[in-house]
């Protein structure tokens, strides 16, 4: 499903001594099936922006279109929009509340008014998508699960709504490296197996590089950069200056150059860095 945001403005605490502008004329379009990485430091407006995409927040001015429907319009049917847009907040474990994992995942489908059988299908399907074994976990209390498993259960709950757009706010934050890798593999799996538009908010540039086709950088409530990863991460100085990092490999190659190693730029992943280093070493051997 396509998304279009036009001149979006949002202000927190309007007309109080604590008034803060959050979004300032944000515009972009996302095509159906695109995989977007949305980055920006804490407070740059990312969370505020995505909450506009399913009508949890209302803009001060500007428009938001999901498909053909303008959800920023007065009286827009938000319940219809929300079932098409799966939104996963930061540290989502807190939203678990049911006695069993099964019931918790079924919460969304039940709100859609699905029959028992349909709900059951969806719970099974989404548990398998996130890699939680049905027989092992369905009847367990969600509070007994490990951090990584809890998060998978929450994502299953969102996927069970069969959203056409999936928005994930920091899905790997606070997990250990192994669970982070699992989570990313799962996202790649979703990307390949379903036709769904994904917006991934992340502080981890390596995650973003690994799975996003396009990156949007927010800074002080504005779109600062928008383009494919290679293009966006070419702005090394700018990204560092606004408190964002580079992918580890890019940062490493940058540090090498700063310290006087005459090596080519542009590597974003370990594989690419390996190639660059290999070319560098080969060239050096040839000179000798």
């Amino acid at each position, binding site marked *: 499903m396509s998304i279009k945001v036009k001149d979006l403005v949002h202000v927190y605490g309007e007309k109080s001594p604590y008034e803060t502008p959050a979004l300032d004329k944000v515009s972009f379009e996302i095509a159906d099936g695109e995989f977007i990485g949305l980055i920006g*430091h*804490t*407070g740059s407006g990312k969370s505020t922006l995505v909450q506009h995409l399913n009508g949890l927040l209302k803009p001060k001015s500007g428009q938001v279109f999901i498909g053909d429907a303008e959800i920023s319009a007065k009286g827009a049917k938000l319940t219809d929009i929300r079932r098409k847009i799966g939104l996963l907040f930061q540290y989502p474990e807190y939203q678990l509340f049911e006695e069993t994992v099964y019931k918790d995942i079924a919460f969304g489908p039940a709100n859609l008014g699905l029959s028992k059988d349909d709900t059951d299908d969806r719970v099974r399907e989404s548990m398998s998508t996130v890699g939680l074994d049905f027989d092992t976990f369905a009847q367990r209390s969600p509070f007994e699960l*490990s*951090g*990584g498993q809890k998060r998978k259960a929450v994502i299953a709950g969102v996927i069970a709504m069969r959203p056409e757009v999936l928005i994930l706010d920091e899905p790997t*934050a*606070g*997990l*250990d*490296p*192994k*669970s982070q890798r699992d989570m990313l593999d799962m996202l790649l799996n979703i990307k390949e197996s379903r036709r769904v538009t994904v917006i991934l908010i992340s*502080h981890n*540039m390596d995650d973003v590089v690994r799975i996003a086709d396009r990156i949007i950088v927010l800074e002080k409530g504005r779109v600062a950069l928008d383009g494919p990863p290679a293009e966006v991460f070419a702005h090394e100085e700018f990204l560092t200056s*606004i*408190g*964002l*990092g580079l992918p*580890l*490999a890019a940062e*490493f190659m940058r*540090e*090498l150059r700063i*310290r*006087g*190693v005459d*090596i080519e730029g542009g590597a974003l992943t*370990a594989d690419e*860095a*390996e190639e660059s*280093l*290999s070319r*560098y*070493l080969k060239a050096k051997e040839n000179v000798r």
Partner: protein
Amino acid sequence: MTIIKIEDLVFEYRRDDESPPVKAIGGVNIDIEEGSFTAVIGRNGSGKSTLAKNINALLLPSGGAVYVDGFRTSDEGALWEVRRRAGMVFQNPDNQIVSAIIEDDVAFGPENIGVESDEIRRRVTDALRSVDMYEERKKSPHMLSGGQKQRVAIAGVIAMRPKCIIFDEPTAMLDPGGRREVMDILLRLHRDGITIVLITHFMDEAVKADRIVIMDEGEVVLDGSPAEIFSRPDRIRALHLDVPLAVDLCDRLRRRGYDVPPGIVGIEEMVAYLCR
């Protein structure tokens, strides 16, 4: 001189009264030198956080003993001596700030140990300056970024003038900018002579330490300098941990047939190798 001495430490807990005890730490021996910087890594549930909480007597050993600057943590009379010497910074920046005003929060520790109010004022000022948060001293914590909140938490610990600080995954919930801020301050404290113990998931943070201790299933499985630890990347990966990028790249280059010398764990060694 040894400042923290962990001797045959065993820690067990029960989920509830009926269930059998679970061993979180099963016989750990670590001596930490005064002024050193030790990183403790390990996957979730490896016991590293439990270990940290045993150092400043938030948890008490089921077996063995922990000494801080000569005081035994399980010795009831020494409790406050232990805690004022070994400060602790936790993971969640929100849940460790007590007061709604920053300078009041930094004063909390010194107030608890009965420091005179003029001296508290001096310590609060010094501590806030040393984490570059003096300008923000009158603000409320919920107006700060995660990195700033962690710096306030660090200031709150510094104001107690501890000999060592245990950081329990201080950057896990921060953005890249916040992580850098916190690591810069941590390194500065280390240079000033404070003993640092850093529990972390991030290998690029761990390689900055003098010594790395890897825990798995409640035991110390590897213990040595970063160069020693990462000389066998396969072993680290088998423990479900990442290796630092420099180590990974050298490993890849070796497999391609380049003769890369051992001991490269960070950027400086890499530069030396490439420019030789």
